[in-house]
């Protein structure tokens, strides 16, 4: 299976000398196209840092990152930005939407920034999938937390990116709404053939993924295919030891 995004010997170091902190320490990992991958690990394991670096939001101290055919390491800020809006989708835990824009405007924001109309048929399909057609003209503050996250999912999908990165997308939601949003993400992969990489510390959320990559102290600490919440909890227990 083709690779949507990958990190090779990725290291991220903060501070100097005695204060040196290695957030990432020689991580090599691949995220396959058309699959839903979760990154798990305890606080400070480097999971968010890995995601930010692979997504082109942050830069590595050493090593390399690729998204599709593009090698990120040598790109300028402008090139990185343009790559993010065409090749990468984002879902954050909170503050996902621009308060002055309507739901629809938020969905097509990356396309608008690129000055493109996008694939209308695809966008319609995405909107139908998240089921918010009647709320498109509303501002974010007129939407519930779950609806806001669904709009964020739709925005991440709208430009048909090579990969979507989600950072604790259900962290601020109650469990029922969380399941709803995770269900949409799952369908985006299964039905629409998208690629999602999700950072989470929630075993139930992670169990929606096809594959889980475990991180500890900035290093890969194992993998799991076809996870269930029980298997994940068990693995986490072992990681803590």
């Amino acid at each position: 299976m083709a690779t949507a995004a990958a990190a090779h010997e990725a290291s991220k170091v903060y501070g100097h000398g005695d204060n040196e902190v290695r957030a990432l320490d020689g991580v090599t990992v691949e995220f396959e196209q058309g699959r839903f991958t979760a990154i798990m690990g305890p606080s400070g394991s480097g999971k968010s840092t890995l995601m930010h670096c692979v997504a082109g939001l942050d830069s590595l101290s050493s090593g390399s990152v690729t998204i599709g055919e593009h090698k990120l390491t040598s790109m300028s800020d402008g090139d990185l930005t343009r790559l993010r809006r065409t090749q990468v989708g984002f879902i954050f835990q909170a503050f996902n939407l621009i308060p002055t824009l309507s739901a629809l405007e938020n969905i097509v924001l990356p396309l608008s920034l690129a000055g493109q109309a996008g694939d209308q048929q695809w966008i319609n399909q995405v909107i139908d999938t998240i089921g918010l057609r009647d709320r498109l003209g509303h501002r974010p503050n007129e939407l519930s937390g779950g609806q806001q996250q669904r709009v964020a999912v739709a925005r991440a999908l709208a430009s048909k990116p090579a990969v979507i990165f989600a950072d604790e997308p259900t962290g601020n939601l109650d469990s029922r709404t969380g399941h709803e949003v995770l269900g949409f993400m799952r369908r985006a992969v299964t039905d629409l053939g998208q690629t999602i990489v999700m950072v989470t510390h929630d075993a139930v959320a992670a169990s929606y993924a096809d594959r889980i990559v475990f991180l500890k102290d900035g290093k890969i600490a194992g993998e799991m295919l076809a996870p269930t919440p029980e298997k994940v909890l068990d693995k986490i227990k072992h990681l803590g030891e």
Partner: protein
Amino acid sequence: MLRLASKMAMARKGRLVLTSLAIILGTSFLSGTFIFSDTITKTFDRLFTDVFRDVDAYVRSSSFIDVPFGGEQRGSTPIAALPTVLEAPGVADATGDIQAFARIIGKDGEPIGLDNGPPTFGGIASASVAGLWTIEDGRLPEGPSQMVMDRASADDGGFVVGDTVRVNAQSGSREFELVGIASYGDISSPGGATFALFDQPTASEFLLKPGNVDAFLVQGDGSMSQEELAASIQSRLDPSLKLEVLTGAQIAEETKDQIGQAIGFLTTFLTIFSLIALGIGSFVIYNVFSITTAQRLRENALLRAIGAERGQVTRMLLVEATVIGIVGSLLGFLSGIAISQGLKALLAAFGGEIPSQGLSIAPSAAVITIVVGTVVTIVAAILPALRAGRVPPLAAMRDTALESVGKGRARLAIALVVLAAGGAAVAASLAGADNLILGLGVMLVFAAVITAGPLLARPVGLGIGRPIAALRGITGSMARQNAVRNPKRTARTAAPVLIGVALVTAFTAFAASVRTQVRDAIGEQFRGDYAITAPQQGFGGLPISLADEVAAVPGVTQATGLGFAAIKLDGESRFVAVIDPTSASGLIDYRMVQGDQRSLDANGILVSQSRAEANDWSIGDVLDVQLVDGTARPLTIRGTFDAQQFLGSYVVNQETFAGSDTNLFDSFIYVTTDGSEGVREALFDATEARGLGGLESRDEFIDSQSGQINQILALVNALLFLSIIIAVVGIVITLLLSVYERRREIGLLRAVGMTRSQTWGTVTWESVITSLYGAVSGVVLGIGMGALLIGVLADDGISAFTLPIGGTIVILVISFVIGVLAAIYPAWRATRTDIMQAISTT
């Protein structure tokens, strides 16, 4: 509490700097004005104390006419009375003194000294110890062909003893032999004025009338006090001469007072502009406090939650405001020193050079500036501080807090009530009430527009933003939404722009109207092909004899002079136009309503139709007129005319002044020619080449006369420049705080693909929309005010309102540029937003 307040203030140095900046700018103009006027007042005080040091008594005519702007014209003193003064007990020496108009012409034909600068005097150089001049080089002048000049003029014109020098004065243009160079006390030229000095008979004949001087300077022999000396002289003088005697101390004081009065006008003028700047600054200060307290909502709520009382939170913010106010005003006072030098340079650039030596700073200037600045800051902080105190402790738990949008209906009601009150005041003043009522009305209208601002900001901002959104796509439409997402803040940010633009527009509209009127009026009145204009308005001018010399130039068919003089009419000081009806016929056209312009004889007067109607005068009525020397000269109304009032309400014949002490000059000479070749060159040789005025064709003359208002407009705009700067700083501060507030949003946008240049664009367009919102409302308000001003001045002959289309476009373009410039730093900060920090959840 005080320690907490100062700690919290210091924790946000950036915010502290921004708030202080607004206060510094607001107070610096005020302090600059104080220092500037202190400095020039001190300079003149020192000068006149010095000048009259050796003068114990001063004899002059008791007959005078006040003229506008703190001056007077006084009758002459006959030199024949000098022996009587010299014989009076206690007198050691006495000499005649003249301070009349004379212009020294440089070797290149250009007059020495500025056209609108310090005066150019002619006077007497005598050996008397009471005289004011000391000869440095050469000797005293003797006889009708010798002169002496001041050291500064000699240096300026490159003159040395032995040169031949041309001087223009009331009696004409003559050449003299320079026999000496003089200094005035220890200085080369008092106050930057130029001086041409002659012996007494030459000075009297050339500058005034033979046998006349302006005054006698008397030195006592030390046997009696100045008061006793003055009384001693007064008792010897023939009462029919109408002479009065002042002590040396009195004349020094009076001269200082007169200068002080003139400086007072200037100071008042400058103070008005510095108060405008301070008012605009107070808006910026209010805005900064409002935004920062909104941003500190959680912090204040936390304080409340852990047990701070309402009053404590409010007091804490007021203490913070007081500290910032004191520090800001102190810095503002110090920068006022630089501003005072800037004001001096500015006035010099507009031809009003003012001498000043060193720098004089009165302690009161510092005290007033700091007190006013601090009080303004505290007042501006009161509302935000009260709002901060009312924060519910629960707000600490909430996430972000926008500033509440007040009740629109109540706001609208207040705005409408204030507007109605303002409108009523304006209507009353149009109906003839005091101008003070008009000022009040205009202030109320301003207050109404600013009160309604938050209601207007949204629709107007959206309207202005529409084309930007259409042209700039997503960045434009986000900028448009950002600009109106907090209408209160937008309105407050735009208020300084609004006030500044409204004032500039009002003056521009006023100037445009005046320009049109002057153009029309002069076009109607002036029927010639060429005009010669005196360079200095108000003091001196062209010799009366020049009109005849011009008429004799080959190719000239007719030439006539037009001058102005002060008279007393029914006991009131008035300026009258002075013409020679014979040569003026067909060349100066007073559009007569009744009577004939040519019937104006030495005992006649023409009055404007509006004055005639106001006073119920008709042809044949005799007006009680007194000349400057006190001569009664009843004048009969020969006709009424329908001309603009700035061309004069009264016209008299030159002959009316024959034999009186009135100094007569022409301000203009109008000329018709046969159009023959070389006539312009011949006219030039007869006038401008000899330093006698400027020669212009009909079109050039109409252009330059109607363009004179432009100079005043430029000065007003230059003085409003600081207000504009404060408005720009206000926009910069608001944008910076907004960018800081929205750092998370900007981070998100950057994450999902907004480039740095798009980020820059969004902030810039937001700034442009805010600035244009202020400018558009300001232009509307300004045009209204301009029209109003014209309406009020309709009685003074300015009636037709001209819409300043070009000026308005320029103002809008400048506001656009201001928006772009103000956004530079905030936009740069926005592009530097750390994406990681902005989107991190904690």
